[in-house]
């Protein structure tokens, strides 16, 4: 197994609350790995600690064989990660071209066009990003993550607020990255999870409840009790 990312004992305590507690997690290179769990399970806090946005209370993060636990977020991104926010975080007052250029760290217009083509927004390259519909803003954010050409792409609830047709577009985009890019996906939409994920980890109350293939997870009794609900 070729490990891309590994956490050991990763913990985050807010006041007295263990938001994430002692999480050992590993991510195989090139795979699409979904992180699911009820609200408040600690999913966003966990990826926050992986990306460096949120300092860990204890534990280590290994990325491509190196300990990055003490690196600030921007250095982790420079090492080949990209992160998209749960709450849309684009540059609302700048044009799409400028948004993409900042993600690419390159102001070449052709490259921006290519990146926008992947989400079908190339005609809007000179529009102000804040004027886009909500769904298009989400897609732009995802396109910015993809444009960074990361080896590990972390997506925090990317399909939230997307229309059905946009979800299809999103899935196509993500599948086109499979194999080259490792994807860590937080997602509530179970159809998307089941369609995309090769591995699933279930978090509950800040702890790992189960890890396995979609089939394993669907048939896991503990998961059903905690998350999918019991009849």
């Amino acid at each position: 197994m070729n490990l891309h990312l590994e956490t050991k004992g990763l913990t985050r305590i807010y006041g007295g609350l263990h938001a994430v507690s002692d999480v050992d997690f590993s991510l195989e290179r090139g795979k699409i790995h979904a992180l699911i769990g009820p609200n408040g399970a600690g999913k966003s806090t966990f990826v926050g600690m992986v990306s460096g946005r949120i300092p860990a209370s204890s534990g280590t993060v290994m990325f491509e064989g190196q300990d990055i636990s003490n690196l600030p977020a921007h250095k982790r991104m420079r090492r080949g990660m990209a992160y998209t926010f749960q709450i849309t975080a684009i540059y609302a007052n700048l044009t799409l071209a400028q948004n993409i250029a900042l993600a690419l760290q390159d102001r070449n217009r052709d490259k921006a066009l290519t990146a926008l083509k992947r989400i079908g927004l190339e005609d809007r390259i000179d529009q102000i990003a804040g004027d886009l519909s909500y769904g298009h803003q989400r897609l732009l954010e995802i396109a910015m993550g993809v444009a960074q050409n990361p080896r590990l792409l972390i997506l925090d609830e990317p399909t939230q607020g997307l229309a059905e047709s946009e979800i299809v577009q999103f899935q196509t985009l993500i599948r086109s990255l499979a194999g080259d890019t490792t994807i860590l996906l937080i997602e509530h939409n179970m159809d998307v999870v089941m369609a995309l994920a090769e591995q699933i980890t279930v978090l509950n109350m800040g702890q790992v409840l189960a890890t396995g293939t979609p089939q394993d997870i669907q048939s896991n009794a503990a998961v059903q009790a905690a998350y999918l609900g019991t009849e």
Partner: protein
Amino acid sequence: MKTHLLHLALIGLLFALGFILPDYHQGNFSRIMVLAIYAMGYNVMFGYTGMLSLGHAMFFAAGMYGFGLSVQLGDLGVIPAMLLALLGTAAFAALVGALSLRTIGVGFMIVTLMFAQAVYLTILYAGKYTRGDEGFVLQPEARTIAGMALNQPDIRYFTALMLFGLVLLGTGLLVRSNFGSVLVAVRENEERTRMLGYDVIAHKMGAVVVSGVISGLSGATYAALFGYVGASFATVQYSIFPLLWVLLGGMGTTLGPFVGALLMFYLIDYSSGLTNAYMLIVGVALVLLVLFARAGIIGEIRKRWVPWLP
């Protein structure tokens, strides 16, 4: 390209005005161009990077005193004194940045205000050298470059124009550079910028130093051209002025600082001829601005008619 042509056109216009303005207005314009340099420095940090400083007078004063004291006490010529003043201001700005960038938003405003207050009080405390509130006059003989007397109105005007032009073209280059576009990104969304892999603190530090040095250049030039160095330039009022000029002219526009400084100067000049309560008229003008032209004059023009304005 359009950006630089526009800037060159303004410089050309001011060059022509240098020959045709009546003496009184020529003097005013010299002063306005020097103050506009200060406003352009302020704009790098406030307008482009989104960091609101309430203590920029400390950088203006650092340049002014760095220059004035080098001439007065060190017997240096204008150019060496100017370079020393700029180096000193850069080091000072780096120190202020290192300490103040631990804070953001309101905290940053308060910290810069306090630093500026500390600088003001230091000037008063070192009254033996700075002559405190009263300040000191730089003799005309000490203010010459290669035999040209800087107190001579034409030379003063064209020296001010030259430095104004350099800074205007420089900020034009800056905002079109990669560095400049990252500063705008920091202003627009700091967290997003960090998560795209940019070192936000290093970019803010760069903005503080560039902004501080340009402000210091303005202070040093003011002392060189007008021959007076005084603590009143380090007061809170001089920290607020560039904020008002930039807001009036348009934050985050290259021409806004000049337009704001020009209008505010003449507004005060004109209204103080009408009444002692001229600050009331200035206040009303600012209220109207906030109500009807929030982006400032150039900012509104850009928003409504000319979107490519830098």
